[in-house]
């Protein structure tokens, strides 16, 4: 379709895009602005649209000492907890699902189909549905308030297994056969051929699962009781809902801004690999 370019057709898309960006970005900007003012300015309800002078003070305080009531844990350690949990969940999910997909696709064992369907069915049972039995098991194993308690129940991933399975099934059989003739055993084939070829899938899954792990709310809320084990999502929640003191909004907002950074960094960092993988992969 050939269209004559008018001023309208030239600028309209940009106007629409700018509007979209504004709608998405404005709340984030407001959170950032709020994190740079003192409590008095925020609580009188007249929040300016430009950053205030308390940026360094607020961030320093929240990072290293925490709020004065509700949770006294510094955000630094919450970020650490969240990071360990998100990385643990993402890496754990990738390892478990790539291995199980490898077994499902390349090994012929009895009840292979049944196993596959069992994994498939677990798609219908997210953490929220099986939360009570999972909690009971974790509690009985003494894994409350531990990192492995936070991570392990979340790493079984039917989605990841299915994703890798679909990918492995598109890898030509000749590559496996060439590996066999090249004296590469099953593990070598996995390590030298399948994993490098799956880099794109791994990158995609890592991004999705890192954010999934980072955003977990219910599970950490249930199994962590110590302040030193709480994740940043729980931390923000505790800062906002206070019993008797005023909510320290500037600190809550600073925490929210800090909580945004790692997932954004992961998306931006992985995007390169992701796109590179998409462009380079050829089977």
């Amino acid at each position, binding site marked *: 379709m050939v269209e004559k370019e008018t001023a309208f057709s030239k600028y309209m898309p940009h106007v629409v895009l700018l509007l979209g960006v504004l709608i998405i970005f404005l709340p984030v900007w407001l959170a950032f602005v709020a994190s740079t003012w003192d409590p008095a300015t925020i609580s009188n309800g007249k929040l300016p649209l430009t950053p205030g002078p308390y940026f360094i003070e607020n961030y320093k305080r929240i990072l290293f000492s925490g709020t004065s009531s509700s949770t006294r844990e510094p955000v630094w350690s919450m970020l650490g907890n969240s990071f360990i949990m998100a990385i643990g969940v993402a890496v754990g999910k990738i390892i478990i699902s790539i291995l199980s997909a490898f077994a499902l696709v390349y090994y012929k064992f009895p009840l292979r189909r049944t196993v596959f369907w069992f994994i498939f069915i677990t798609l219908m049972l997210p953490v929220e549905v099986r939360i009570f039995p999972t909690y009971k098991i974790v509690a009985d194993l003494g894994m409350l308030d531990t990192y492995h308690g936070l991570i392990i129940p979340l790493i079984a991933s039917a989605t990841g297994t299915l994703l890798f399975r679909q990918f492995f099934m598109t890898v030509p059989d000749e*590559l496996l056969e*060439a590996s*066999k003739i090249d004296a590469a055993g099953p593990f070598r084939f996995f390590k030298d051929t399948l994993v490098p070829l799956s880099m794109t899938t791994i990158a995609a899954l890592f991004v999705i699962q890192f954010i999934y792990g980072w955003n977990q709310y219910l599970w950490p809320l249930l199994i962590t009781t110590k302040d030193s084990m709480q994740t940043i999502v729980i931390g923000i929640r505790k800062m906002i809902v206070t019993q008797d003191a005023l909510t320290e909004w500037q600190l809550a907002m600073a925490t929210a801004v800090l909580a945004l950074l790692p997932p954004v960094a992961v998306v931006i960092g992985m995007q390169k690999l992701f796109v590179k993988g998409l462009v380079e992969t050829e089977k």
Partner: protein
Amino acid sequence: MADVTLKDIRKVYPGGFEAVKGIGFAIPDGGFCVLVGPSGCGKSTLLRMIAGLERISSGECRINGRLVNDVEPADRDIAMVFQNYALYPHMSVYDNMAYGLRNRKTPEDEIRRRVADAAKILAIEPLLERRPRALSGGQRQRVAMGRAIVRKPQVFLFDEPLSNLDAKLRVHMRVEIKKLHKSLGVTSIYVTHDQVEAMTLADMIVVMNAGRIEQIGTPLEVYARPESTFVATFIGSPAMNLLKGSVADAGTVAVGGTRISCETGNAATGTEVLVGIRPDEVALKPGAPLTVDVTFAEELGPSRLYHGTLGGQDMVIQVVPHAADPAATRLGIDIPARAVHLFDAASGRRL
């Protein structure tokens, strides 16, 4: 270097389908054996059983006298070239060729030397640092062969290696493979459905059909003395004419009212036969009693094909272009007696 001996090899799939129904032959050391047949005839399955990629249901496969039925592919001392090359897409050409050697713990300087040698033979030296994706089809094919050469195996296995290439490149690579075999002298087994490849490359052709061997022989034997109608029509292009007829008396067969003289051997008079005549062995003879009614002509350049009928049955003859009028509707022909092949009408076997 090794000979390969197969004894009553069978492949039965779990569903009960028998893909290979008892095949036995021996390839001498340094021989070039081509397995040829239509798709689904079991030739690839047979090759894959020799490679060890497919279990042998029953029978014996020996490489250099050693029974290899239960030996892993890596330990059979074979190298294989696949139809779609099966190069590792994430490795450079060098690494593709070196991979098998590294897995066998060959010292790195030895690997470097062998890869360099192979690259020189195949003229792919400038490509060593590239990824397979950056190569053309012909170059990938060379790399796939390079991967086989560096291993210095006892047997080369080729699984339709040229069928992904365009026609011109195919002819070129065919010549390269022939040269390579001449210079390396390694026993080779080559699977193809292309009879031209089979004829040109082989010093031993195994024609297969429906899981069985139809005929084994040198290209010339198979061409000149096909043992069955299947081989007769499969080898040679254009395909051999097969006309229904019967033995009239010793020395002639009757085909729809006309008579063709030939060697009838000891076939009884009245035996129903298929008369095989290669299109290019028919000679034009104006005014001869034997005639072909021409329907249309096809120009091939060096020759012309006349499609027509003889005694009411389809017949193709191939002659040099200047020998007759392209628009001719009736041609007198002469068929030398030695050019007539007789097959039993019921079994299709040569009489």
